[in-house]
């Protein structure tokens, strides 16, 4: 059944959408959009290192993302610069280091466009396995720690006072985020992964009224974006990653319409 490249792309994309739904909700609740972006930028360094030392790309990206997350925590203790400044510093320095290192590895041909925007049409059966098995592990852990993580997201002090140990769960969440980026970097690319995290979650927020509903609708919207996006790219021969994001943003715009109408009706 996975003989067809398009089926492989669809199965992988849907797998990624199922993981990015809940994590994307947490990212926007916790105002971590730019943090996701920073991890994604640093992924380029991870990919370069993977080529240099012939490591598995997902593994190498995961390690680099985790290191960046720990560096951020450490920097926050040492300086009073605002979080967004530190993230900008880390994002662009790791991006630059990645590109410089790439220059040293002139013997290897890099597909820069592929790294930036991903190439979901070239996924292999191993990639499918990686996304679905890795994704199940991530979702399994998330399900297990949901209550603690969610209470820490609503209010850190409250969670801390009532024994939910928010520090530990915040750390685990960061690692899960690094994991998602590592799994999806090859298919979606460093520049677009944050879009797939945030846009379906944001769309879902417009049409839901409780946290669980928001998570499930975000997953559905993610799956819808991937499916329609891939069919569009097949039909019009556009690049697949960007097509998925364009569909996601169109769905977001549609989600705004009922709100507008409701506002007018109340007046």
């Amino acid at each position, binding site marked *: 059944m996975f003989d067809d490249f398009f089926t492989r792309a669809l199965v992988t994309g849907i797998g990624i959408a199922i993981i990015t739904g809940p994590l994307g909700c947490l990212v926007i609740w916790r*105002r971590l959009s730019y943090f996701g972006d920073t991890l994604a930028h640093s992924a380029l360094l991870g990919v370069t290192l993977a080529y240099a030392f012939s490591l598995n790309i997902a593994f190498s990206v995961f390690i680099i993302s985790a290191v960046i997350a720990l560096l951020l925590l450490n920097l926050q203790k040492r300086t009073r610069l605002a979080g967004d400044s530190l993230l900008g510093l880390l994002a662009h320095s790791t991006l630059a280091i990645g590109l410089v290192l790439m220059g040293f590895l002139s013997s290897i041909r890099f597909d820069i466009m592929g790294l930036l925007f991903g190439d979901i049409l070239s996924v292999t059966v191993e990639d499918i396995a990686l996304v679905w098995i890795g994704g199940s592990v991530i979702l399994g852990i998330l399900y297990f720690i949901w209550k603690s993580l969610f209470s820490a997201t*609503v*209010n850190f*002090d*409250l969670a801390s*006072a009532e024994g939910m140990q928010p520090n530990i769960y915040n750390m685990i969440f960061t690692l899960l985020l690094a994991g998602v980026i590592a799994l999806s970097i090859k298919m979606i690319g460093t520049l677009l992964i944050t879009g797939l995290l945030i846009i379906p979650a944001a769309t879902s927020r417009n049409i*839901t009224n*409780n946290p669980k509903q928001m998570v499930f609708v975000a997953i559905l919207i993610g799956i819808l974006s991937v499916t329609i996006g891939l069919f569009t790219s097949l039909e019009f021969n556009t690049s697949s990653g960007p097509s998925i994001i364009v569909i996601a943003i169109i769905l977001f715009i549609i989600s705004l319409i009922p709100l507008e109408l409701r506002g007018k009706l109340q007046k």
Partner: protein
Amino acid sequence: MSSKNNLLVNLENAGVYKSPKWLIKGVSLEVRRGQIVTLIGPNGSGKTTTAKMVLSILEPDEGSIKRYTDKIAYVPQKINIDWTMPLRVVDFMRLTNNLNDNEVSESLNQTGVEKLFKEQIHGLSGGEFQRVLLARAIAKKPELLVLDEPVQGVDFNGEIDLYNIIKNISANLNCGILLVSHDLHFVMSATDHVVCLNGHICCSGKPSTVIKDKAYIELFGEHRSKTLTYYQHDHDHTHNSDGSVSS
């Protein structure tokens, strides 16, 4: 039962340092089961910091703290819940607690906001939100309850209601309560032990002792402390008529 078994938390000479100064220093206090201990003092005197030490949100930089329970509930001074998080009152009630619908309704009923069950948290008024916060804490059936200015934003009648509820909680659940309050009337009339803070402990003891203390009068001004002496007297009278001893 020895008195030791009733001890819930014990701070000894505890302090928190945040560069470049001590937020609070040399705090010793204890909360026992069935007791209401209040922290009073001006803004920035370390009331919330002390409460956060008791809750282990902040660890003391000097001195020590011992907790004898982990069934703790907290009503924080201020919570901002961002619009990006869709949250109904019922979801909020279950934040750190597994409750069924009946238990949620029952607790909301106790603070008079049962009708808000399915409302969005963002749509509540300040006073309604305080009531939900208190209901959530009650639902946890804690052994130690820490309340940081629980009646702020509540209207006058509501304030009396909530203070009555707080008194009932300490009796019904037999829990210890640490209360941060600006309402000196309630503090002096209904609580067991008062700790007056201003970066350190100015004075502490039973309400009747504290209001006579020079440090207390200096901190709150002669006029206000006298007004409260009057209230205290008023309370004694009520208490006598409630009790079995006739005057």
